[in-house]
C-alpha cells in the first residue's frame, strides 16, 4: 500500500467539506462517536442537516464562526492506498494556509461549482498549485445535480479551464471529473446519471493516479542532518551522517563530493536502522558512512560530482509573504534551506503577482500578508540549491524573522 497526499481548498459553499465528508464516510473513516458528536453539535446550533464541516473544523474559533481557518489534516485509507488530505480554507485572506497545505501535496483537487464555472477562486487555487509545483490536478466540477447533470455545461467549463491553465506550466496532469458531492455521483461509484462521462470516479482516480515519479531520482542530494558518533567501545571509530535523501540514489561505492567544502570521498555503507542497504533514494531517512575521515557537519550536502547543485550567495525566488508586518527592501531575515540556516538580505523586489488575474505588478516596494512575488536574496553563507521545479526539497526555503522567530515567508527558488 502506498501513500497519496492531496490538498483541497475552498469554503463551505463550494461543497468542499461535503466532499471530504463523503470520502471519509464512504471509506468508513468516520467513527460512530465522531458522527454522534457532530450530530449533537449540529443540533445544538440548530442546523437542519448534519454539518459535515464540523468534522474538519476542529478549533473552537472555527466552529463559532463556521469557517475553516487553519490547515487540518485528515486521513483515510482504502485497500489500495492511504490518503492524507491537507484541508485548507479557500478565501484569499488564507493564501498562506493554502500554500502551506500545498507544499507537501502530490495532487490538488480544484473544486468548481457547475453553476458558476471558472471563477476567480478557481484561478487562485490553480495558480497556487502551479506555484507549489503540484503536478497532478483533479478538476472536480461539483453540484452537477443542480445543472441536471448536463454534459454541455460540463464540457463548457472544462474548455474554459483548459484555456486558462495553458499558462500554468507545472500542471502536467489535469483530470476533470463531473461530480455531485452531496449525492455521491462519481465520488466513489460511477454515476448512472452521467453515463456520458467516460472517465473514472474521483476515488478510483485518487487510488490509481501514478505519483511515484514526482521525486527527483536523478540528481543525488543528501543534506546532512546529524552526525552519529556512538562513543562506545563497539563502535569506537564510527562516524555516520544521518539525513533524508533529497534526490537521486546513493549506493555503497559511489563517489561523492561534500559541499560547500568540495572534499571528495566514497560511500562506504548506507544504513537504515543498522541494516545495510544496496541503495537509498528520496525520501528515505538513512545513515551514510564514508571511506575517508573528512570534516562534515549539519548543513553540509553530499552530492555527486557529475551533476552538482548550484552554489551561490545569490538567489532568485518566488515567495509568499506570511506576516502582518510588511516585507521591505533591504530587510534582514534568517533563511532556512534544507538543514542549513544562515542570514539573508532582500536585494531586490522584482514584481508581485495578482493571483486573481495572474497579472504582474511591477510596483513592488513592499510585500504585505499573503502577497506572492519574485525577489532576489543575498545570503551570508553560500547555499547549495536547485530550482524548485527540479527538486522540491533543495529548491525550497523559509524565511524567519530574527526578532519574533516567526516563519514569515515560503520561498521557491527560480
Amino acid at each position, binding site marked *: 500500500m502506498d501513500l497519496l497526499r492531496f490538498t483541497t481548498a475552498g469554503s463551505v459553499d463550494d461543497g468542499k467539506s461535503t466532499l471530504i465528508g463523503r470520502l471519509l464516510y464512504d471509506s468508513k473513516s468516520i*467513527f460512530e462517536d465522531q458522527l454522534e458528536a457532530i450530530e449533537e453539535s449540529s443540533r445544538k446550533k440548530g442546523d437542519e442537516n448534519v454539518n459535515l464541516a464540523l468534522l474538519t473544523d476542529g*478549533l*473552537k474559533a472555527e466552529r463559532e464562526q463556521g469557517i475553516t481557518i487553519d490547515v487540518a489534516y485528515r486521513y483515510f485509507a482504502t485497500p489500495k492506498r492511504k490518503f492524507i488530505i491537507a484541508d485548507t480554507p479557500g478565501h484569499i485572506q488564507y493564501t498562506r494556509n493554502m500554500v502551506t497545505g500545498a507544499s*507537501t501535496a502530490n495532487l490538488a483537487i480544484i473544486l468548481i461549482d457547475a453553476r458558476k464555472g471558472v471563477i476567480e477562486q478557481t484561478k487562485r487555487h490553480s495558480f497556487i498549485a502551479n506555484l507549489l509545483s503540484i503536478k497532478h490536478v483533479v478538476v472536480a466540477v461539483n453540484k452537477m445535480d443542480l445543472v441536471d447533470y448536463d454534459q454541455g455545461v460540463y464540457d463548457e467549463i472544462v474548455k474554459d479551464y483548459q484555456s486558462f491553465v495553458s499558462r500554468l506550466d507545472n500542471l502536467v496532469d489535469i483530470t476533470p471529473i463531473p461530480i455531485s458531492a452531496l449525492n455521491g455521483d462519481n465520488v466513489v461509484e460511477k454515476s448512472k446519471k452521467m453515463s456520458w462521462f467516460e472517465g473514472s470516479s474521483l476515488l478510483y482516480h485518487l487510488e490509481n493516479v501514478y505519483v511515484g515519479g514526482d521525486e527527483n531520482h536523478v540528481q543525488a542530494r543528501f543534506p546532512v542532518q546529524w552526525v*552519529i558518533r556512538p562513543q562506545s567501545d563497539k563502535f569506537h571509530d564510527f562516524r555516520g551522517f544521518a539525513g*533524508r535523501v533529497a534526490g537521486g540514489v546513493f549506493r555503497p561505492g559511489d563517489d561523492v563530493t561534500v559541499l560547500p567544502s568540495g572534499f571528495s570521498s566514497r560511500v562506504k555503507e548506507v544504513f537504515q536502522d543498522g541494516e545495510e542497504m544496496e541503495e537509498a533514494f528520496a525520501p528515505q531517512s538513512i545513515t551514510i558512512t564514508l571511506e575517508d575521515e573528512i570534516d562534515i557537519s549539519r548543513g553540509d550536502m553530499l552530492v555527486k560530482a557529475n551533476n552538482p547543485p548550484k552554489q551561490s550567495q545569490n538567489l532568485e525566488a518566488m515567495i509568499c509573504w506570511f506576516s502582518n508586518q510588511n516585507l521591505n527592501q533591504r530587510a534582514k531575515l534568517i533563511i532556512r534551506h534544507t538543514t542549513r540556516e544562515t542570514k539573508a538580505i532582500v536585494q531586490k523586489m522584482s514584481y508581485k503577482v495578482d493571483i486573481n488575474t495572474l497579472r504582474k505588478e511591477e510596483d513592488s516596494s513592499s510585500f504585505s500578508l499573503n502577497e506572492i512575488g519574485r525577489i532576489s536574496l543575498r545570503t551570508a553563507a553560500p547555499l547549495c540549491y536547485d530550482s524548485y521545479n527540479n527538486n522540491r526539497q533543495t529548491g525550497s526555503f*523559509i524565511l*524567519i524573522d530574527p526578532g519574533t522567530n516567526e*516563519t514569515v515567508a515560503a520561498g521557491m527558488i527560480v
Partner: protein
Amino acid sequence: MSNYNLSHLNQLEAEAIFILRETAAQFENPGLLFSAGKDSIVMAHLARKAFYPARIPFPLVHVDTGHNFPETIAFRDAYAEKIGARLFVGLVQDSIDKGTAVEETGANASRNKLQTVTLLETIEEQQYDAVLGGGRRDEEKARAKERFFSHRNDFGEWDPKNQRPELWNLFNGRKQSGEHFRVFPLSNFTEMDVWMYMHREGIELPSLYYAHERETVTRNGVILSVSEFVQPREGETVEVKKIRFRTMGDATITGAVESSADTMEQIIEEVAAARQTERGNRADDKRSETAMEDRKKEGYF
C-alpha cells in the same frame, strides 16, 4: 531498473525519523515522553532506529499520576533498561504535596488534568526545551490542527489560532528562552498505521493491550477496571469481563473494550472493524466538546 516507491509505512517511518533527528539537532535538551503506552513505545523504537548505533541522545520522561496500572510501570522500567536510556519520572504526587496541584474532588475526580501541572514543572526543572510526544492528528479534532513542531509560550500554553506555518521538510524550532516546543513525529500515523507498524516491526507491548479477564464496573457507558483507584459505587455491580485496552492512561479514566483479541493480528482486525475512535472510551475527552483543545491550550500533552 529499481522501483523507487516507498510503502506508506516506510514513508511514515522516514518522516518520523527525520523529525526525531531534527529535534536532536535543533534543541539543546529534548526529552521523550514515555508512558509505556503503545504510541510512546513506537516513538522510542523509532528513536533507536534514528540514532543507531548510538544511544538515543535524550532521556525518556514519564509523568506518573500514581494511578497507573502496575503492568505499565513494570514495562516502563524494563524497557528503559533494555535500551539503555535514562528515565526521568515526574510524580503528580510531588506536585500535590508541594501544593502546586490540587486533587480533584467529586464524583468524576481524576488526576488527568493534574498531569499538566507536573509536566510543566518537570519541563522547567529539567530545563527541557523540546518534549517529544506520540500524539497523532487522527486522535482528536484539536490534534488534527497540531504542528510537528508546536510552539509553547513561557507558560507552556498553546495558541492554536496563531501557529507557525509548516512547509515542506522545513521546521522552525527557534524560540526565546523560557519557551519550549512539543514535537509530534507520529502526526501522520493513524491508529491503524501504528498497529500495522508495530506488527511489522515485532514491537512488544504491555499485556494490557491484549485480551484478558478482569473485574470491571461500567460507569457512564465506560468499562473501567476495578483497582485500588476505581471502586464500585452504590448501584454498580462488579463483573468479570474479557477485555483489552485501546489506549493506556490513568486507571481511573481509561476505558476498556470487550474483546477476545489476544494476538496483534486479531487486534488489527478489530481496529479495522471498529466503529468508535480509540479515545471514544476516554472519560477525559467527554467532559466537553472542546475538552482536548482546552487542555492543550493549558499545556497538556
